């Protein structure tokens, strides 16, 4: 499918998702007025009814969706009830923080995973142990690893902060180490297994035998002939795993109290902040789909057979 076609598909999916999310959030117990009543018991039933009518909460969900969608199309994203700020102002810093976390983790996971995988494929003796370790490592729940890391490096050794973000004058990287390590480890095992399988496959291809017959050195065979072919499935995995990576980021942020998209969505859903929850969910979905698309394009650029 062409790039334009894929972008159109993403656009349609986003529109569909916005409707589904709106309905789901509408099904969540309690609306902002219920919360207002809980916060101020002097509000009477008449006040509640008046407020509901004022904010249009008494109208059917579909009608409210159309009003919201119309506003978004005109660039009015609404206010966050929880943070009392325009939703758009909240999203950008959160998205930047999450992208930094996800990007670093992906870089480390894919880089180290490919290194381990290639080592497993090249050295016969390493294939079994690395494969088994990767298999077991995939079973480690990411957030539990995060707790263990906090226990070791923050509680016991006191080297790194247990969570949060850097204040003025603090080194930002120290707050990134543990979250990035937690998120990267969860993905590392998958990349190792994938890279090992892909490299082993590539080394069995007929042109490897040809290269060897021509007298190419083993290093040249591995890096010039096999590796480029093994890299393609790894990039496929990046595309397929974009969703899992973002999911991992959500729980990592919750664990380390990092203000990113994951924490924003969680707080918004818990705090019944429907404007914020909706837009944050949509932004995350769109970014994930764009990530998949980018991986697909990279794959196509690298593999002439897919063009």
């Amino acid at each position, binding site marked *: 499918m062409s790039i334009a076609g894929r972008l159109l598909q993403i656009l349609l*999916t986003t529109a569909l*998702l916005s409707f589904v*999310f709106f309905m*789901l*959030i509408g*099904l*969540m*117990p309690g609306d902002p007025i219920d919360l207002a009543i809980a916060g101020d018991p002097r509000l009477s039933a008449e006040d509640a009814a008046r407020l509901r009518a004022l904010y249009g909460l008494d109208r059917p969900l579909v009608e409210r969706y159309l009003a919201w969608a119309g506003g978004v199309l005109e660039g009015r994203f609404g206010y966050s009830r929880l943070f009392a700020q325009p939703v758009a102002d909240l999203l950008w810093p959160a998205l930047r923080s999450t992208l930094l976390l996800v990007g670093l983790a992906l870089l480390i996971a894919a880089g180290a995973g490919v290194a381990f995988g290639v080592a497993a494929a090249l050295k016969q003796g390493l294939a079994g142990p690395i494969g088994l370790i990767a*298999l*077991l490592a*995939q*079973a*480690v*729940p990411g*957030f*539990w*690893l995060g*707790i*263990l890391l*906090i*226990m070791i490096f923050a*509680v*016991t050794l006191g080297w790194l902060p247990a969570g949060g973000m850097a204040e003025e004058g603090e080194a930002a990287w120290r707050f990134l180490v543990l979250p990035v390590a937690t998120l990267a480890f969860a993905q590392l095992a998958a990349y190792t297994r994938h890279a090992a399988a892909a490299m082993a496959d590539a080394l069995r291809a007929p042109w490897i035998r040809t290269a060897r017959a021509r007298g190419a050195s083993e290093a040249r065979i591995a890096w010039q002939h096999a590796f480029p072919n093994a890299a393609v499935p790894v990039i496929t995995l990046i595309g*397929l795993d*974009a*969703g*899992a990576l*973002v*999911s*991992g980021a*959500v*729980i990592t942020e*919750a*664990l380390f109290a990092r203000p990113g998209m*994951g924490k924003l*969505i*969680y707080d918004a*859903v*818990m705090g019944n902040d429907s404007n914020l*929850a909706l837009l944050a*969910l949509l932004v*995350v*979905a769109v970014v*994930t*789909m764009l990530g*998949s698309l980018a991986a697909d394009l990279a794959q196509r650029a690298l593999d002439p057979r897919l063009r």
Partner: protein
Amino acid sequence: MRIAAGLLLLGVIAAGALAAPWLAAALGHDPFAPDLLNRYAPPSATHPLGTDELGRDVALRLLWGARVSLAVGLLSALIAAAVGTLAGLVAAWRGGLWDGLLMRLADALLALPALPLLIILSALDPAAIGLPRGQAMADVLRIALILAAFGWMGVARLARAAALTVLAMEFVRAARALGVGEGRLLLRHVLPALASPVAVATALAVAGAILAESALSFLGLGIAPPAPSWGNMLAHAQEALFEAPLLALWPGLMILATVAGCTLLADGIRRRGA
């Protein structure tokens, strides 16, 4: 070998989960009864792994958590396997529009980040989607259904690929030529060939569901306390990292062992099939 190791791990955990009430009677305490004078007790003869933030026995709660986690994992994987097999079979058999629709739906669900969606689904009022609210069993059913909605795609893809291979074989043409009906053909000739890939995908779905359940319960959206689940035990343990660091170790090890068991099982079946 991997199959045996996986089955052994899962068997031990399942046996512990089933034996939990008898072990509770043998140790002589109730894993739900708080004992506030005995909070964060270190491991001892009466409390093999110590006690938690309310003075309840950690070992017994782990086993009770195993009942919950295994129930959620198995239930959601079975639903996902049934739905996925059906979807894969229909997609391969009907082809064309059905194939396109089902597989695009699977692609779309796979491309989305699952956890944010699970968060919003778990936050729904269960009564609004026709489920009872509040009881532990209802929690298990609710989480299992939500996880199954995001777990069937893997099964569907593998089932579809296997069904396509079988449907292209000579004996299927022969059976059709002999006048075997389509229903009988699918049930008797195609479905048995899907057993191995579906078993692999189901074992992986159990692992995925247990991980997702623990993540949701950790966030406070899964199994609600006082019912123990490994995820909500970890959430409480994280708040007490300074007082009782060991509390955070056990539930994670249980999840690790269960998921590793499922993965070993799946890997073993796949290797034997290949």
